[in-house]
C-alpha cells in the first residue's frame, strides 16, 4: 500500500511532465488532482485503520564500513497522520491549479505552467511520503534535501521574475543548513552505534564526547542540538524564517503547501527523535520558540507585502509549537499545528489568490476589496477568527466553544500556566492576532487606496477550496485535546479572547478608524523591525561579510606575499625566456630543444636519485 501511495504521486508527476503539450493543461491538472486525491484518501484510510504495510524499495543502497542504508517505507503512527495531512494539503493545492494564472500581475498562464506546477506538487508530496516513512538514515536525509529542493523550486517558480532566483537560493540554502545540522547529529549517533535506523536513531541519549576546537563536547548535547536546529529550520523559527518570507513569492496554489508541509516535517522530527532531547535542549527550544513567536509577530506587523505578512505567521505558529514540545506536550503541539495550520492555509491561499487576482501585494495600496472579493473576505475572516483565538471564554461542561485556534491557545496557556513561558505566549498571541487582523482590515476595510481592477471575478474552484478550508477551520476545535484547567486559574480561557480582542481592536483602530495614526507611528518609530528583518540580516550579517572575506582575504591576500615575489620573478625572467624561445622556434629547433630540456630534467632527477 505504501508503494501504491508513492506510485500514485509519481504517476501524477510523470503524467504532468510527459504529456505536457500533448494533453490540455486543464486535463493534466485535474488528472493529477484525482491521483493525488486518491493518494490522500489511501493515506487517511491507512492512518485510521493502521493498514499501511512496509515496503523495501532498494536494499542496500550504500554499503561501506558502518554506513549502510536501505530505501524503505515503514511508517509509524504519527508518520502516517503527517503523510495524510500533507497529501490533503497537496491535493487542495493541486485542485487550485485549475485557476492559474495565479501569479501577481500575469494576464494568462504561460505554456506548460499548470503541468510544471502539477509535477512539482507531485514530487514534493513524494518526498514528503519518503521522509515521513523513512527507516534509513540516508533515506531520511535525502528526502529532506528533496523537500528543500522542491520547496525552493516552487519559491522560484516564476523564473522570469526579478526575485525568483533570490527566493530559490535563500529557501534552499536555509533548508539545506537544517539538513546538514541533522546529518551531523545523525553522523555522531550513526558512528557511535555502528549504524541505526533513522526512526530509532535519537531514541536514547548517547554517552561519550567529541572535540570542537580542541574542547570536549558531549555527544548527547551535539545530537540533541542537531535535532533542535533542524526542526527549528523546518518550523521557520527566527532566523530561519527567511525561507518562509521568500517562499511567499510562490504561485497561489502552492502558497500554503511548502510552509505547512515543512512545518509538519519539523514537528515530526521533534516527535520521532525528541526522546533524545535533554532538559537543556528543551529549555533552549522553548525560549527560542517563544522569542521567535514574538519576533515573527513583530515582523509580520511591519510587512508591507501582504503575502510576506501572512507567511511569517507560519513561523510564529511554529514558535508556539516549539514551546509545547519544550513542555513535553507533543500531542498538544501536533493539535496546535493542525488547528493553526488549517487557519494558516486559509490565510495563505486567500491572500495569494487576492494578490494574483487583484495584481497588488502592497498592503498600503489595498483596502476596500470587500465588495470585489466577497468570498475571499468571508474566508479570511474565518481564518483570522480561528488564528487569533476568538471564542467563548466560559467552558460549557468541559467543552470549549470556539474555533481551533481558541481551543489550542487555551490548551497552550493552560500548560504554560505557572511557567516562564506564560507571558511570552500571551504576548505572541496578541501580536499574532494583531498581525492577522491587520492583514484582513488593511486588505478589505475602508475605501480602496488604489483602483480595484475592472471585471475581477473570484474563480469557483478557488472559492470552493477556500470554503472547504473555512469549514475545516470551524471544525478544527474537535481535534484539540482538552487540557484540565486548574481550579485556581479558570480565567485562563479568557486570555485568548482578550488577546484576540486586543489585536482586533488595535488593527481596527490603526488601519480602519484612524489610519493617520498608523502612518504617524510609522514615522515616529524609527525602523523598528529593521534590525530583525531578513534583508538586514542577510545583507548586514551574511552577504556583505562573506563578500568582504572573499575579496579581502581571498583575492587581495592572494596577490600579496609569496605570490607577489613569484610574479616579479616571472616577469623578470619571461622576456629572456621568450627571446630564447623565439630563436629556437625561428631555427626550427623547437622539438630538439624541448627534448633536450625534458631530457636534462629527467637525467638530473635520475642522477640525484642514483646518487642518493
Amino acid at each position: 500500500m505504501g508503494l501504491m501511495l508513492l506510485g500514485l504521486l509519481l504517476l501524477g508527476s510523470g503524467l504532468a511532465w510527459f504529456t505536457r503539450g500533448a494533453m490540455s493543461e486543464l486535463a493534466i491538472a485535474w488528472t493529477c488532482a484525482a491521483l493525488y486525491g486518491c493518494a490522500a484518501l489511501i493515506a487517511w484510510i491507512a492512518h485510521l485503520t493502521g493498514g499501511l504495510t512496509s515496503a523495501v524499495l532498494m536494499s542496500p543502497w550504500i554499503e561501506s564500513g558502518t554506513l549502510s542504508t536501505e530505501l524503505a517505507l515503514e511508517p509509524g503512527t504519527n508518520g502516517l497522520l503527517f503523510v495524510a495531512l500533507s497529501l490533503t494539503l497537496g491535493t487542495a493545492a493541486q485542485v487550485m491549479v485549475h485557476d492559474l494564472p495565479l501569479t501577481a500581475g500575469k494576464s494568462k498562464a504561460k505554456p506548460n505552467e499548470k503541468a510544471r506546477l502539477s509535477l512539482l506538487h507531485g514530487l514534493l508530496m513524494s518526498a514528503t511520503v519518503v521522509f515521513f516513512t523513512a527507516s534509513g538514515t540516508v533515506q531520511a536525509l535525502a528526502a529532506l534535501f528533496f523537500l528543500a529542493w522542491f520547496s525552493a523550486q516552487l519559491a522560484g517558480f516564476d523564473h522570469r521574475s526579478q526575485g525568483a532566483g533570490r527566493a530559490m537560493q535563500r529557501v534552499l540554502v536555509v533548508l539545506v543548513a537544517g539538513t546538514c545540522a541533522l546529518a551531523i547529529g545523525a553522523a555522531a549517533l550513526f558512528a557511535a552505534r555502528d549504524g541505526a535506523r533513522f526512526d530509532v536513531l535519537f531514541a536514547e541519549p548517547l554517552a561519550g564526547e567529541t572535540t570542537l576546537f580542541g574542547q570536549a563536547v558531549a555527544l548527547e548535547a551535539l545530537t540533541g542540538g542537531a535535532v533542535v536546529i533542524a526542526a527549528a529550520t523546518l518550523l521557520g523559527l527566527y532566523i530561519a524564517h527567511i525561507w518562509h518570507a521568500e517562499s511567499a513569492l510562490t504561485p497561489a496554489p502552492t502558497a500554503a503547501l511548502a510552509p505547512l508541509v515543512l512545518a509538519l516535517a519539523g514537528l515530526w522530527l521533534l516527535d520521532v527523535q525528541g526522546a533524545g532531547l535533554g532538559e537543556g535542549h528543551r529549555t533552549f527550544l522553548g525560549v527560542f520558540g517563544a522569542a521567535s513567536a514574538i519576533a515573527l509577530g513583530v515582523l509580520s506587523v511591519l510587512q508591507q507585502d501582504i503575502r510576506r505578512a501572512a507567511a511569517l505567521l507560519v513561523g510564529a505558529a511554529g514558535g508556539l509549537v516549539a514551546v509545547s514540545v519544550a513542555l513535553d506536550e507533543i500531542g498538544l503541539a501536533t493539535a496546535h499545528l493542525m488547528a493553526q495550520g488549517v487557519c494558516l492555509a486559509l490565510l495563505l491561499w486567500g491572500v495569494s489568490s487576492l494578490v494574483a487576482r487583484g495584481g497588488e501585494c502592497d498592503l498600503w495600496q489595498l483596502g476596500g476589496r470587500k465588495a470585489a472579493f466577497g468570498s475571499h473576505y468571508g474566508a479570511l475572516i474565518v481564518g483570522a477568527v480561528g488564528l487569533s483565538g476568538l471564542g467563548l471564554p466560559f467552558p460549557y461542561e468541559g467543552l470549549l466553544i470556539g474555533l481551533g485556534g481558541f481551543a489550542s491557545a487555551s490548551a497552550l496557556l493552560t500548560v504554560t500556566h505557572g511557567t516562564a513561558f506564560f507571558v511570552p505566549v500571551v504576548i505572541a498571541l496578541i501580536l499574532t492576532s494583531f498581525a492577522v487582523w491587520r492583514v484582513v482590515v488593511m486588505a478589505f476595510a475602508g475605501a480602496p487606496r488604489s483602483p480595484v481592477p475592472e471585471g475581477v471575478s473570484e474563480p469557483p474552484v478557488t472559492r470552493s477550496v477556500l470554503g472547504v478550508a473555512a469549514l475545516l477551520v470551524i471544525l478544527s476545535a474537535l481535534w484539540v485535546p482538552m487540557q484540565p484547567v486548574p481550579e485556581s486559574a479558570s480565567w485562563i480561557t479568557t486570555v485568548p479572547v482578550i488577546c484576540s480582542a486586543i489585536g482586533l481592536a488595535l488593527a481596527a483602530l490603526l488601519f480602519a478608524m484612524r489610519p493617520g495614526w498608523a502612518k504617524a507611528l510609522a514615522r515616529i518609530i524609527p525602523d523598528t523591525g529593521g534590525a530583525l528583518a531578513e534583508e538586514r540580516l542577510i545583507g548586514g550579517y551574511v552577504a556583505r561579510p562573506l563578500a568582504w572575506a572573499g575579496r579581502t582575504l581571498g583575492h587581495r591576500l592572494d596577490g600579496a606575499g609569496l605570490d607577489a615575489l613569484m610574479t616579479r620573478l616571472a616577469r623578470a625572467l619571461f622576456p629572456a625566456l621568450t627571446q630564447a624561445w623565439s630563436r629556437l622556434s625561428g631555427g626550427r629547433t623547437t622539438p630538439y630543444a624541448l627534448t633536450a630540456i625534458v631530457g636534462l630534467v629527467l637525467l638530473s632527477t635520475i642522477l640525484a636519485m642514483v646518487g642518493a
Partner: protein
Amino acid sequence: MQNLLSILTFTPLLAALILAIFLRGNDEAARQNAKWLALTASGATFFVAVALFLGFDGANRGFQFEESRVILGLTYRMGVDGVSLPFVLLITALTPIAVAMSWALSERVKHYVIWLLTFETALLGAVLSLDLVFFVAFFELAILPALLLAGMWGRMACGVSALKAWLYTLPGTVLLIVAAAGLAGEAQTTDISQLLLHNFSAAAGALPGGGQSVLWLLAAVSVAVKAALWPFHTWLPGLGFRAPLQVGMILGVLVTSLGLYGLLRIHVGMLPVATDAFAPLLMALAGAGLVLGVLSALVAEDFGRLLSYVAVAQTGAFVLLIAGGTVQSFDAIVMALLAHGLTLAALFALAVMLEARGNAREMAAFGALKTRLPVLSAFFLFFALALLGAPGTAGFVALLLALFGLLPVSLTAALLTALGALLFGGLALALYRQLMLGPRVKEHFKLVADLDGRERLTLSLLLVALVLLGLWPGIVLDRTAPAFAEIAAQFAALR
C-alpha cells in the same frame, strides 16, 4: 593481462608521437585528424582503464597488474592498488572530455593535442609507477605540459602566469627529490610497495611526529603546490583566469588531483606518524582553503577564476578528509575525488560552451538563459546541484561519508565540511541564478543555438557517471575500501 598498465600509460604518448612525426600541415583536415586521433587514443585509454577497473580484485589490498623490468640499471615497476585506481579512472575519463571541450580550437591544434596526450601519459605514469625514481620523474614532469598548454594557448600575458606557476613548483621539485632520496636511503629501496611497508623512523625529535617530520615537510611543498592547497594555491586562480577554460579544467582538476595523489601515496602511505602529528596543521590549512576558496569564487567575475577557486576549495575539502584518517573519511576521499572531479569538469565544459556562445568569460555578460537555452540550463542546474551534493549524485555520498567519517575524530572538521557544503550550495545557486534566471535575455543571446549533439553527449556522459556513482557507490568503494581500510587501521593504531 601482461603489460596492461604500460599499454594504459603509453597509449596517449604513442598517439602524440604519431602526430608529431606523421601529421603535416595546418589546414582544416589536419586539425580534424589531430583531434580525432587524440580523441581515439584517449578514448581507447579510457576503455583500457575500464577493463583494468573491472578486472581489479577488490578483496586484494596489495598492488595488482604488476610489471617489472630493468632499464638502464633502473627498475621500471608498475602496479595499481585501491588508492591509485580512482585516480586512473578520473584521469582517463577526463582526458577525452578535455579533447572534446577543445573541439572548437583552431590554433596550433597539433601541438595542443600532443601536449595534452603527453600530459595524460605523465599523469598515469605518476599514479601507476611503483618505483620512486619513476614516480618522482613523472610527478614533476607532469606539470610541464599543463603549463605549456596554459602559457601557449592562453590570453593576457598568460606566459608570465605559467612561468610563475613553474617557479612555484621548482623549489618543491628539489625538496621532493631530497625527500625521495631520504626515503630511499633509509629503506634501502626505491620500490614503493616496500616503502609503504617500511616503518620509517619516528624517533622523538624537535618536530611533532619525530624523524618522519623532516621527510614529510620536505615532500609537502611540492605536493601542496600541485594540489593548490592554501596558501600555496595562488598560481592557480591567476592561471585559470588567463588559460583557455579547457586547460583550466586540466589544471583545476587533474593537476590538483596529482598533488592529492602525492599526499596520499607519500605522506599518508609512507609517513603516517608525521601525517597524524601534522593533522591539526593540515586541518587548519584545509579549512582555510575550503572557506576562502568558496568565498573567493563567490566574488569572482569570470569563469576561469571562479572555477579555479572552486578547485582550491575542493582541495581543502579533500585534505580535511585526509586529516580525518578514518575508514569513512578515506571512502569519502574516493567519492569526493570522482564527484568533484567530474562535476568541476562539467562546469568547465559548460563554461566553454557559454564562452563559445557569448564570446565572453565574464558572468555579467550572461543572464536569463533558461528561456533561450533550456537544455544547457537543465544541464547547468544538474551540475550545480551535484556541486552542492544533492542526493542521487556522487557528491551526496561523498558528503555523507565525510560527515560520518570526520565527526568521531573532530567536530570542527565535520562542521567545516558542512559549512563548505552550504557555501558550495550558495555558490552553485548564485551562479545558476546569475546565468540562467532573470527577466530578460541579453541581446546577443537571442539568436544563439542550444547545445549540439556533441556537447549533449559530453555532458550526458558526465551526468550518467555522477548519477551512477550516486546510486551505486559500491561499484567503486568495493574495490578501493580494503586498501584504504588498511591505511585507516594504521591511523587508528596511532590514536
